[in-house]
C-alpha cells in the first residue's frame, strides 16, 4: 500500500512540476536552515563536554554588592581563594586557578635554536595555571606527562598548533622558549607538555599554559597575601566529590567570605556574594561578565532557532495552502477512491504519504544545501562546525526525523481536508472551496507575511543600530590612529626615542602612550571618593596610565581645568584628570567645581589622594553597549603598553613604512606589529555584526519562500478565474482593472500582515535595543520603509501573474472552458 501511495505521489508531483518545485524548494531551504541552526546549537551546547570530570567541576562566581545594589556577576576571585576553599571544605577535592595574560594583546614567544634562525611569534590566548589544573580538566597530551606538567617553576604546556609553529615536525618536549608577557614578565620556559585540543570546543580556548611559579605574577600573588577582598582576577575552578550538591556548598560560602574577607571588605566598602557555576553551563551563561572566552548568548540562540523554525513553518504553510487551493484537482480522485471502497483513514494516510515523500526529496536537497552552505555559514558565524557522514550518524537520523515530522505536519491539514470530501458532491463536479478553508488559507498567508515583516523590521533596526555604532561620535578621534603594542622591556624603553624620531615626520600629528586605549579591555580600576566621604560612597573608576601627549593625540577635549602636557612638566602621579561622569558621580556638581579638589582611594588600610587638575568631556572607552562610567587618567613616566600615533590625512602606506623603519632602528629584536584604533573598537561589535549578517540572510530566505507561496497562490487564482477574466474582458474591462481585481485580495492580506506585525516587531526590537546603552531608537519611518518593501515585493509577486491573466486572449480562455 505504501508503495502505491508513493507511486501516485510521485506521478502527481511530476504532473504538477510548478507546484512541486515551489514546495520542494521551500521545504529544502527551510530544512537546510533548520539543519544549519541545529548544527550551530549542537556546537554551542557541546562546550567542555570533553572533560571527564565535567559533572563535578564548578567555576566560582563573584557578585559585587555595593550599597545594596548588585553589579554584574564576574567569574573572578582573588588569588588565595582557591587554596582556602580546598582547606575549608572536605567536599572540595581539588581546586585550580587560571589567569589569562590579560594585559597582553599578544604574547611574544621566541625560540632560539643553537644552530638556526631565531623564531619570533606573536601568540594569543596564553594563561597562567596551577599544576592541579590538569587534574581537573581533561587534556589530551601528545607529548609529556599530564601528572607533572606544570609542577616545576618556569614550565610551559603548549598546544600542538603552537608546537608545530615553533618546531615543525621536531619534538617539542624539554625545549626551552622565551616568553615575553606584559602580564607576567620576561623569562625562559621549558616545555613539559604538548596538548591536542581536539574537535570539542572549550570555554578555555588555550594556546599555552605557564606555570604560576617563576614569573612576575608569583611575586604579585605573594604580596596579595591573605587579602580575600581585592584583586579579583583569577578564575577559580573546584572539583567536587561525586555526589556533592553544589547548592549545599554554595550555601556555606557566605560564612566563608565572612570569615576570610569580612574585615577587608568592610574597609573597601563593598560586599561579595559567591556562587558556583557548573562547567558545562559556563559557555551559555552570558549573565556572567568577562569570562575566559566570550559566552554564547542564550537569547541569540533562541532567536536563531526561532528564525530557522519559522522559515520551515513558512515552507509548510506553502505546502498546505497550495494543496488545499488545488484541492479541486484532487477532489474527483478522492470521490472515486471513496466509491471504490477507500475509508477516510486510508485516504489520510495516502495524502500524508505524498507530503512525506515530498519532504524526503526535500531532505536530500537540504543535506546537499547544508553541506554546500556550511563553510559560508561558518564564516558568517565565525565558527568551525563540521558535518560528516561517519561521525554524525545520529545527527543525520535526527535530521531525517525532523524531515518526517515536517512532512506529517505540512501534510496533515491538507490530508484531513481532502479526505473529507463527499463523493456524491465531488463526482458531480460541484466542489467549491468552503469559506472556512479560504479563511484558513488567508490566515496562513497573513501569518507567513507577519513573520517576513517582523524579519524585515528586525533587519532594518539591526542595520540602523550597526550603522549608528559605526558612525557615532565616540568623543575622541578614532580615525588615523596607529596603535603599536609595546610588549617587551626593550620596546617600552625605545618609546621615547621612537617618539622623538617620528615627531620629525610631517605626516605625524601627535604621538602618545598609555597602558590602555579605548576599545580594549581596561582592567585597572579603583574605588574613588571625594575628600570627606568614606569608601562606602566610592565609585568604581577605571584608570589609565598615560604620557603627557596621549590626551592630545586622541583629541579628548577638556571641559574644565587642563590636560597633561609637556607644558606642565611638574605634573606627577598625584594629579588626575577625570571625565565629566566621574565629576558628577563624586558629587562635585559641576566640572568647574571639581578642579583642584581631591579624591581618595583606600587600599589595604592606606589612603592615597589625587588632585583633580582637569575634567574632560565624556568619551566612549568601551563600546556602545555599555554606558560611560567614571574614568580617570594618571600620568606615568614609563612602562606604557601602547604607543599611539595620530597620522594626518595622506599616504598611509608610506607612513607605516616610516614607522616600521623607526621601530627596526630602535628595537630591532622585536617584531613590528600595529593595529588601527577604529578597527580595534569595531571588534567589540563582532557578535552584533554576526547577528546582523545571519538575520539578514534568513530574512531574505524567509521572504523568498513566502513570495514563492504567494506566487503559487496567485498563479492558481488567476488560472481558476480564467473564465471570469475572459467574460469581464469581453464586457469591456481594461487590463488595469483586471490586474487590480486579481491583486487587491492579496494586497489586503499583506497590508493586514504589516499592521499586525508592526507592534510585534516594535516590541521585540525595542527589547533587543535595550542591550545597548546608546541606540538609535525605532521610529515610524522604519515601519513606513517596511510596509513599502513588503507591499512592493507582494505587488511584484502577484502582479506578474495578474498581468499574465489579464493579457490573455479572452477568446482563447473562454473556448478552453
Amino acid at each position, binding site marked *: *500500500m505504501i508503495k*502505491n501511495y508513493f*507511486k*501516485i505521489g510521485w*506521478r*502527481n508531483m511530476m*504532473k504538477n512540476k510548478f507546484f512541486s518545485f515551489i514546495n520542494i524548494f521551500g521545504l529544502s531551504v527551510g530544512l537546510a536552515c533548520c539543519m544549519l541552526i541545529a548544527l550551530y546549537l549542537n556546537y554551542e551546547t557541546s562546550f567542555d563536554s570533553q572533560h571527564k570530570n565535567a559533572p563535578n567541576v564548578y567555576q566560582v562566581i563573584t557578585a559585587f554588592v555595593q550599597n545594596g545594589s548588585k553589579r554584574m556577576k564576574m567569574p573572578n576571585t582573588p588569588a588565595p581563594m582557591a587554596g582556602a576553599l580546598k582547606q575549608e571544605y572536605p567536599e572540595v577535592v581539588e581546586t585550580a586557578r587560571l589567569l589569562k595574560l590579560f594585559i597582553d594583546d599578544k604574547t611574544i614567544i621566541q625560540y632560539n635554536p643553537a644552530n638556526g634562525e631565531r623564531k619570533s611569534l606573536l601568540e594569543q590566548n596564553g594563561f597562567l595555571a596551577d599544576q592541579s589544573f590538569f587534574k581537573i580538566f581533561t587534556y589530551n597530551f601528545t607529548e609529556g606527562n599530564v601528572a607533572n606538567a606544570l609542577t616545576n617553576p618556569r614550565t610551559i604546556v603548549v598546544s600542538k598548533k603552537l608546537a608545530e609553529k615553533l618546531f615543525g615536525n621536531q619534538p617539542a618536549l624539554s625545549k626551552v622558549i622565551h616568553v615575553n608577557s606584559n602580564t607576567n614578565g620576561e623569562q625562559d620556559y621549558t616545555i613539559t607538555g604538548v596538548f591536542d585540543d581536539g574537535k570539542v570546543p572549550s570555554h578555555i580556548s588555550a594556546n599555552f599554559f605557564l606555570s604560576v611559579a617563576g614569573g612576575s605574577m608569583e611575586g604579585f600573588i605573594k604580596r596579595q597575601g591573605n587579602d580575600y577582598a581585592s584583586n579579583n582576577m583569577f578564575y577559580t575552578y573546584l572539583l567536587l566529590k561525586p555526589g556533592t550538591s553544589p547548592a549545599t556548598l554554595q550555601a556555606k560560602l557566605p560564612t566563608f567570605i565572612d570569615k576570610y574577607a569580612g574585615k577587608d571588605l568592610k574597609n573597601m566598602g563593598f560586599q561579595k556574594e559567591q556562587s558556583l557555576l557548573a562547567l558545562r553551563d559556563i559557555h551559555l551563561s552570558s549573565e556572567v561578565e568577562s569570562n575566559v572566552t566570550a559566552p554564547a548568548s542564550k537569547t541569540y540562540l533562541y532567536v536563531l532557532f526561532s528564525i530557522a523554525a519559522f522559515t520551515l513553518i513558512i515552507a509548510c504553510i506553502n505546502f498546505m495552502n497550495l494543496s488545499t487551493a488545488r484541492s479541486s484537482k484532487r477532489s*474527483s*480522485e478522492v*470521490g*472515486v*477512491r*471513496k*466509491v*471504490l*471502497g*477507500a*475509508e477516510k483513514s*486510508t485516504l489520510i494516510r495516502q495524502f500524508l504519504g505524498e507530503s512525506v515523500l515530498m519532504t524526503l526529496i526535500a531532505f536530500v536537497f537540504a543535506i546537499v544545501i547544508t553541506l554546500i552552505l556550511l563553510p559560508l555559514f561558518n564564516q558568517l558565524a565565525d565558527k568551525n562546525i563540521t558535518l560528516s557522514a561517519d561521525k554524525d550518524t545520529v545527527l543525520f537520523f535526527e535530521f531525517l526525523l525532523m524531515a518526517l515530522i515536517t512532512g506529517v505536519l505540512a501534510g496533515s491539514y491538507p490530508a484531513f481536508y481532502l479526505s473529507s470530501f463527499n*463523493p*456524491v458532491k465531488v*463526482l458531480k463536479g460541484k466542489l467549491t472551496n468552503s469559506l472556512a478553508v479560504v479563511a484558513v488559507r488567508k490566515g496562513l498567508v497573513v501569518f507567513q507575511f507577519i513573520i517576513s515583516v517582523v524579519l524585515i523590521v528586525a533587519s532594518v533596526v539591526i542595520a540602523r543600530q550597526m550603522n549608528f555604532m559605526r558612525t557615532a561620535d565616540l568623543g575622541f578621534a578614532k580615525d588615523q590612529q596607529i596603535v603599536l603594542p609595546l610588549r617587551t622591556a626593550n620596546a617600552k624603553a625605545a618609546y621615547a626615542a621612537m617618539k622623538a624620531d617620528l615627531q620629525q615626520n610631517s605626516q605625524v600629528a601627535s604621538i602618545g602612550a598609555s597602558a590602555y586605549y579605548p576599545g580594549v579591555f581596561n582592567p585597572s580600576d579603583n574605588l574613588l571618593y571625594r575628600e570627606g566621604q568614606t569608601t562606602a560612597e566610592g565609585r568604581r573608576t577605571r584608570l589609565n596610565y598615560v604620557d603627557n601627549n596621549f590626551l592630545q593625540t586622541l583629541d579628548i577635549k577638556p571641559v574644565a581645568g587642563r590636560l597633561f602636557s609637556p607644558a606642565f612638566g611638574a605634573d606627577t602621579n598625584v594629579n588626575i584628570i577625570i571625565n565629566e561622569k566621574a565629576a558628577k558621580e563624586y558629587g562635585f556638581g559641576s566640572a568647574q567645581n571639581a578642579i583642584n579638589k581631591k579624591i581618595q582611594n583606600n587600599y589595604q588600610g592606606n589612603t592615597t589622594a589625587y588632585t583633580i587638575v582637569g575634567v574632560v568631556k565624556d568619551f566612549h572607552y568601551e563600546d556602545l553597549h555599555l554606558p560611560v562610567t567614571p574614568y580617570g587618567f594618571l600620568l606615568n613616566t614609563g612602562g606604557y603598553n601602547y604607543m599611539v600615533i595620530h597620522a594626518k590625512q595622506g599616504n598611509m602606506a608610506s607612513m607605516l613604512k616610516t614607522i616600521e623603519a623607526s621601530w627596526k632602528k630602535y628595537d630591532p629584536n622585536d617584531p613590528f606589529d600595529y593595529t588601527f584604533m577604529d578597527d580595534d573598537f569595531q571588534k567589540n561589535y563582532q557578535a552584533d555584526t554576526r547577528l546582523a549578517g545571519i538575520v539578514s540572510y534568513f530574512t531574505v530566505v524567509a521572504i523568498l519562500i513566502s513570495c514563492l507561496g504567494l506566487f503559487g497562490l496567485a498563479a492558481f487564482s488567476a488560472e481558476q478565474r480564467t473564465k471570469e477574466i475572459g467574460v469581464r474582458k469581453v464586457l469591456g474591462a481594461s487590463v488595469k482593472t483586471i490586474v487590480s481585481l486579481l491583486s487587491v485580495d492579496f494586497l489586503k492580506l499583506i497590508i493586514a500582515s504589516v499592521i499586525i506585525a508592526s507592534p510585534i516587531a516594535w516590541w521585540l526590537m525595542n527589547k533587543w535595543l535595550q542591550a545597548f546603552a546608546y541606540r538609535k531608537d525605532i521610529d515610524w519611518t522604519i515601519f513606513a520603509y517596511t510596509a513599502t518593501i513588503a507591499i512592493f515585493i507582494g505587488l511584484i509577486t502577484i502582479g506578474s501573474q495578474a498581468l499574465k491573466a489579464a493579457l490573455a486572449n479572452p477568446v482563447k480562455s473562454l473556448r478552453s472552458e
Partner: protein
Amino acid sequence: MLSLQHISKYYQVGGNKNFVINDISLDIDEGEFISIMGPSGSGKSTLLNIIGMLDEPTDGFHYFVDQPVHQLKEKQRAALYKQYIGFVFQAYHLIDELTVYENIETPLIYQDVKGSERKAMVADMLDRFQIVGKKDLFPAQLSGGQQQLVGIARALIAKPKLLLADEPTGNLNSKQGEEIMELFRKLNKEDGVTIIQVTHSEKNAEYGTRIINLLDGRVESSRKL
C-alpha cells in the same frame, strides 16, 4: 436483495421542504436488471446513490441483503458496500494518475486482498475484457469506450453482487453504447450480477428486465419486460 420503504430525501429551504425523493418504496430481487428512467431532476441519480450508500436518505427504511442499512454505523455500511456493490459512472471517473492495470487493481487494495491474489484477479479481468495490451496505458490515452470498459472492469473486479451504473453510455457513441449494454446483459444473464442503471435512452433501458420511471421524486410507473 434490497428493499426501500418510504424513502425520502429533501432539503430544507426556508420553511419549505424541497423533495428530491418523495416517499419511494421499492423492492429489487437478486438477478434483476433494472433501468431507472425519468426527466432531469426527477431524482434518478439520488435514488441510485442512496441504493449505493453514497448518499443517505432523510427518512425511510433501507434494507440490503436483509441488513437494515439505515441503522448501520459508517464502518459496517462501508464493509457491506465494499463486499457487494460496484459502481460505473457516466464520466468513467478513472484515476488519471493510475494506469489501466492500477485502476482496476485499486478496489482490491482497499479490500486488503493480497498482492499475488490481486495480480491474478486483475490479469483475469484484463483477459476477460480483452484489454491486456492496454494495461500500462493511462486513461488519457484511451478512447471513451475503452475508458468505460476499464471502468466496468474496475467495478467488477471485487465480484460485486450489485452493479450500479449512472448513465454508463451517456458519453459514448451509439456503437460503443451498444457494446456496453451487451456486456451488461451478459453479466446479468451469465454471472447473475444484479444491475441497476440510470439511463435517458429508451433503447438502452430495453436491455433491462424492469423499467422504473421517476417523476418529481416519485415512482410514476414500473413495468416488467
